[in-house]
């Protein structure tokens, strides 16, 4: 199973949303990371065959997805960035409705819906109407509907938005288990969501891929370049100008900072363990 993106570009009126994207995916988890407007959602909508790209193509097992139609859609699970569900439906009804649209046989429908409600932790509120659900609960309904047809390709646009830390951890667990035989593509602003589970992280900036690697390799490339030190508050402006600051912690009149620098930025600076978030700041903070 291969999903490949070839020479993909997309333009909205005056904005070049994606430029010459090329990469291939086999079973595993792929994290799309980038600031707002980087082109993550556009790329995901093209991969879900919702919009047609201005240039290039997406191939699934070497066949253009736009020609596959129903046979591609039946292998697809998709959670859009904005999702509410019909507010006058209960979670169970909504999932049964989507199961129906996905062509699940009636006998399978109820079992699958019950399984997924339990998986996302909503089985005790399944009879409650969606209008009474919190943002996080709706998100979980969205994740459940994407999984209904046991898709080979799962595209989740910011699945963790609105989820509390426990739910995020639970979702990571679910995705890790599913990734054995599926292509899972997820976009997020929360770096820790992809750091621990993604097989590859793709950094998108202004519609271009600026880095695409396994998180461990990315983190390794920053070894000995992430520093932590304490400075008087008055010196902060200087360091903020000179180095990408990842984190600041005010301690009365002093500030503890974490930054990226090729060489020791301060005599008292100590090397710390790099994280994927450091790489994100390295790429995006200056812009």
């Amino acid at each position, binding site marked *: 199973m291969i999903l490949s993106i070839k020479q993909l570009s997309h*333009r*909205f*009126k005056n904005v070049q949303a994606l430029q010459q994207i090329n990469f291939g995916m086999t079973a595993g988890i792929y994290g799309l990371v980038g600031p707002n407007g980087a082109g993550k959602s556009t790329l995901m*909508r093209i991969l*879900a*065959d*919702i*919009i*047609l790209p*201005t240039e290039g193509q997406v191939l699934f097992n070497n066949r253009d997805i736009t020609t596959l*139609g*129903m046979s591609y*859609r*039946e292998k*697809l699970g*998709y*959670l*859009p960035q*904005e*999702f*509410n*569900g*019909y*507010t*006058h439906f209960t979670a169970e009804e909504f999932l049964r*409705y*989507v199961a*129906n*649209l*996905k*062509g699940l046989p009636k006998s399978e429908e109820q079992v699958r819906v019950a399984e997924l409600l339990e998986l996302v932790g909503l089985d005790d509120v399944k009879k409650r109407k969606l209008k009474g659900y919190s943002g996080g609960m709706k998100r979980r309904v*969205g994740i459940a*509907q994407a999984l209904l*047809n046991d898709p080979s390709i799962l595209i989740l646009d910011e699945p963790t938005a609105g989820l509390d830390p426990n739910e995020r951890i639970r979702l990571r667990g679910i995705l890790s288990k599913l990734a054995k035989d599926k292509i899972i593509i997820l976009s997020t602003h929360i770096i820790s969501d992809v750091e621990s589970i993604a097989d590859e992280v793709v950094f998108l900036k202004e519609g271009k891929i600026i880095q695409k690697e396994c998180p461990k390799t990315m983190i390794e490339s920053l070894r000995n370049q992430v520093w932590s030190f304490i400075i008087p508050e008055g010196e902060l402006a200087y360091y903020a100008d000179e180095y990408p600051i990842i984190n600041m912690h005010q301690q009365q009149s002093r500030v503890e900072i974490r930054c990226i620098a090729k060489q020791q930025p301060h005599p008292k600076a100590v090397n710390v363990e790099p994280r994927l978030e450091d790489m994100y700041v390295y790429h995006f903070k200056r812009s």
Partner: protein
Amino acid sequence: MLRWEIRKLLRTPWLGGCLGIVVVSWSIILYFAAQTDSARYLDKLPSFWSVIGSLTLGLIILAFLMKLFVLDEEHHVKEVVQTTKFGKRTIFHVRLASIMLFTSGLVCVFVFIQLSLFFIFNSFEYAMDDIMNGLFFQAILYVWLGSMGFALFGAFFSTITKSQAATIIIVGILFGLTYPLRGDMLAPFSFLWFLEKGFFSYLMRATREVLTDANLLPVFVWYISLLLLMAGLTIMIQKRRHER
């Protein structure tokens, strides 16, 4: 799929309220007509469609049925629906079928209200042929055809505009124009003639003038052309996937 779409329609709040208004208004009219003579009471029966029946039916179609075509957009479910196995085209067809089925059901409910209340307030002696004659069934056929056309027109319109508010306002005005305009005072095929006859309510009113109109063919041709035009526009817009 059809079952779920019908279920969505049945869940609409106020549908019972609208039917209640029809029952109450028709009861009042019949009650006072029953205080007069048998000929006048019998005359009231076909008048059910001229205002109460057609107006309420039109309102229900606009306010409740059209929601089916904008609900996905309003609840951010559109892309979920689009990426399911059957895709947007099949689902659109199923939705069209469900509003046609639902509209047919509504016409039956309205006929039931019309007849049952007529018999409840009836204190006169009629032969069954006096009540259920050819004109009575012709009226039902016209109402059914008109409401089908109107439901389809509204469905295409709301799919194109993706807004229920715009559909209610614009299609509602077009639908309602037949009531204040006097057809017999308009020049055939003039602008006002089209406004009076042009948006299905003329047929749905099934007045004696409509039922005995020997020159209905141009009206049907206009309705069919209008539906074909709207269907063409809808297909064009539904096919468009290059977002710009």
